[in-house]
């Protein structure tokens, strides 16, 4: 049984020009111990979709416009804020892109790691401190007995991200949402942090949603992948299938625009154009204005991902022809 089942999740932002749909009928399942990658450009709605599950939408202007997110037999989307708050940090956790700004600058790292244990588990300050030292050791912070009392500014970027992970996993959550956890880090540290996340998954059976725009990270870490574009899921499959046999022109474009050793010296291919404005999305398939395979029928209807194979769904109505051309 899936740990998290998201169905038809929609999120809208109220703007002076009217409601803007940042996430449109997004559905995905996440099994125990699975790593799901959500890939997309900036503004594709991947962060908003995940934050809405935790009720962490920015400001009062954003609202969940529909859908369900079943987690442990409860719909997170309709759960009262009070009950959801107790799940956050204990059953559900989130880590963020920029570890430098997401830690409280005036609180010691140890206190920040210990705080969820004190708050959710009722540990005493002394017990929580001891647990924090263990957690820091587990996420690979050197000399945790000393660093537990350091302020975040003494830490490097990678250590800060490790500290943030330690706070997030303190209460042994079942689901961790990692919002571009390595974007602000340099490449060697990136690999270490990703390995740490996978290691935690292996040891505790934690499920992870990894939000990223980097297909290299997807290739290295994820079990399943969902590709988002302009608020919709375009394609969804196991990692191997999606990377080997992409069935959506957008996914193909993304894969093709990755630099590879084979294409060395040649100009990097890119997808022409840019994300459509969400306030005024194009009719039909949202990708069709930039799609090389577009034809008139792409401009009508609103294709949602449909299974091409039992484990591979694509929102492209022309996927057979696209695949044949490849």
């Amino acid at each position, binding site marked *: 049984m899936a740990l998290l089942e998201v169905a038809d999740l929609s999120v809208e932002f109220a703007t002076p020009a009217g409601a803007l749909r940042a996430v449109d009928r997004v559905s995905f399942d996440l099994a125990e111990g699975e790593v799901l990658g959500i890939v997309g450009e900036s503004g594709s709605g991947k962060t908003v979709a995940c934050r809405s599950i935790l009720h962490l939408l920015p400001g009062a202007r954003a609202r969940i416009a529909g859908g369900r997110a079943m987690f442990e037999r409860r719909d997170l989307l309709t759960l009262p804020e009070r009950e959801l708050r107790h799940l*956050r940090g204990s059953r559900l956790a989130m880590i963020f892109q920029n570890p430098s700004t997401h830690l409280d600058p005036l609180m010691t790292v140890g206190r920040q790691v210990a*705080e969820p244990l004190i708050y*959710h588990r009722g540990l005493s300050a002394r017990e929580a401190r001891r647990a924090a030292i263990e957690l820091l050791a587990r996420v690979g912070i050197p000399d945790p007995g000393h660093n537990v009392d350091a302020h975040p500014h003494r830490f490097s970027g990678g250590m800060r991200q490790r500290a943030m992970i330690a706070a997030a996993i303190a209460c042994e959550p079942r689901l961790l949402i990692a919002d571009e956890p390595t974007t602000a880090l340099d490449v060697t540290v990136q690999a270490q942090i990703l390995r740490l996340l996978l290691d935690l998954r292996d040891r505790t059976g934690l499920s992870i949603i990894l939000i990223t725009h980097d297909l290299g990270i997807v290739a290295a870490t994820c079990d399943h992948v969902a590709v988002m574009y302009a608020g919709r899921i375009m394609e969804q499959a196991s990692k191997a299938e999606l990377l080997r046999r992409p069935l959506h022109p957008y996914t193909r474009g993304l894969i093709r625009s990755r630099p590879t050793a084979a294409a060395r010296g040649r100009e990097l291919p890119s997808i022409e154009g840019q994300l459509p404005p969400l306030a005024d999305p194009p009719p039909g398939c949202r990708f069709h204005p930039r799609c090389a395979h577009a034809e008139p029928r792409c401009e009508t209807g609103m294709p949602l991902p449909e299974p091409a194979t039992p484990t591979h769904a694509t929102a492209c109505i022309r996927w057979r022809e696209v695949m044949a051309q490849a």
Partner: protein
Amino acid sequence: MSVLGAAIHRRLHHRLGAPSTLFYIGAGLCLFWIVVAIAAPWIAPYDPIAQDLRATLEPPNARHLLGTDNFGRDILSRIIWGTRLDLQMGVFGVLFPFLIGTTIGVVSGYVGGFVDVLLMRLLDVTISFPFFVLIIAIVAVLGPGLMSFYIALALVGWVSYARLVRSRVIVLKHADFVLAARSLGFSGPRIAFRHILPNAIMPAIVFSVSDAVLDIVLGSSLSYLGLGIQPPTPEWGLMIAEGQTFIATAWWMTTFPGLAIMLLATGFSLLADGFAEKLGLRE
């Protein structure tokens, strides 16, 4: 003492970087007055209220270093004992407005909406009156004395702290680390007071130090007007008031307490400036 001093120094250094020379002068002056206040019983050469009618209005001399007043009381001893009261006015005069103001500022800024509107209108009403006039009016209604002075300050002085803290809280509540705290499921009050407040309070602390100066001067002014400390208690403002009649013949009665106020105020001001300067550099 030196261990404590070193610890404080390291802490300041850690948070603010190396403090400036002016900061040290200010800290030194404040420390000097604190020591004087604590050691008053041992360092004051005379009883501050003991009259000696054979030695009235003596100019500074070997027996009375700063002279005597019209009742023959030793000015130096009265200044030394007065330090206790004036420092106390500085500390408590700031403490209550600080506590009330920061709490209101955090609540107003963090909760926002109707609560914010209500509290800010209350603030507008309070600051629409001239500060000194309102203080004097409240003290006059409650009756002269230190208690009335503190109550008046608490009722009026909170507004500055509330505004300072509120504006920082409004900025900080959208900070990334606040989002991270929310993602860990903490309650609103916990986030507001444990995560936002410590990050928002520094300007209020800096202001409180210069506010203490104002309170000491204000307390002295009230004593001068007869609304504060009552004679024969030694208090600097009161001493100036009593010396006023003799200003042409016994300048020492007013000059030395005046100097004392000035030196304490300078100490607090430099301390505040030192903090603010470091804070400015940091931001």
